């Protein structure tokens, strides 16, 4: 079940990308407004918004083998 939920997350990621494609095309043409919107996205990426918590690399906790783990007492 977890696997299916994980997969649904993957689908959502890809679906969002596909929606971007569909949203831009109207009657076989990509209007100027959509082109301008795309440029604004590039400007935002150029500004470099990588500061959110989702971009933070958190080191994995070190797990000691049970035989060498300190006695909690």
């Amino acid at each position, binding site marked *: 079940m977890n696997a299916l939920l994980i997969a649904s997350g993957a689908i959502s990621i890809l679906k969002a*990308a596909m929606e971007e*494609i569909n949203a831009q095309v109207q009657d076989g043409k*990509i209007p100027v407004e959509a082109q301008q919107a795309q440029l604004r996205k590039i400007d935002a990426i150029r500004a470099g918004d990588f500061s959110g918590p989702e971009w933070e690399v958190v080191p994995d906790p070190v797990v000691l083998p049970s035989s060498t783990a300190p006695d909690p007492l």
Partner: protein
Amino acid sequence: MERPRPFRVDSTDCQPQSPAHMRKLLNSILLAAAVCMAGCNSGCGTLDKGTPDKPSPYGGVTATGEMKTPDRVLYDADFAIATSYSTIRNFVKWELDNRAALASTPGVKKAADRLRAGAKEWFKSAVAVRDAYAANPTAENRSALQKALDVLQQAVLEANRYIVAQPLTPENP
């Protein structure tokens, strides 16, 4: 154990269904995404030239007032960069939001951390060569742009590979 919550599950076709259905859906979506990342997004429509008072930002107006044909290569590059950014950002955010539930599949966090570590530089580089191509659309700059886009494409494919591998393994039919 906490179960991972899919983000943006706002449509019935995003609800978990049978493994066979999921497999078909994933395959078709992945194929479409791969095609689009390869540059087909452009094949899905032509760029409107606009009007003299509101020209295409990818075209513009000549000195004599004629509408220029918009630069499809630049538009496609921007599309690939923007789509890659949103896909990778959505992936790392999804991994963060579901980290506890994904603890049993450490490959997902490892992939997300690799993307986190490299994304800023990859996008910075892609935008830089994009700007170079926009200013001077030579074959050399176009080639450099394609190489930068290839890096982003690999990053997107890595995210997809790890996240999709889980339900397709024989142990998780």
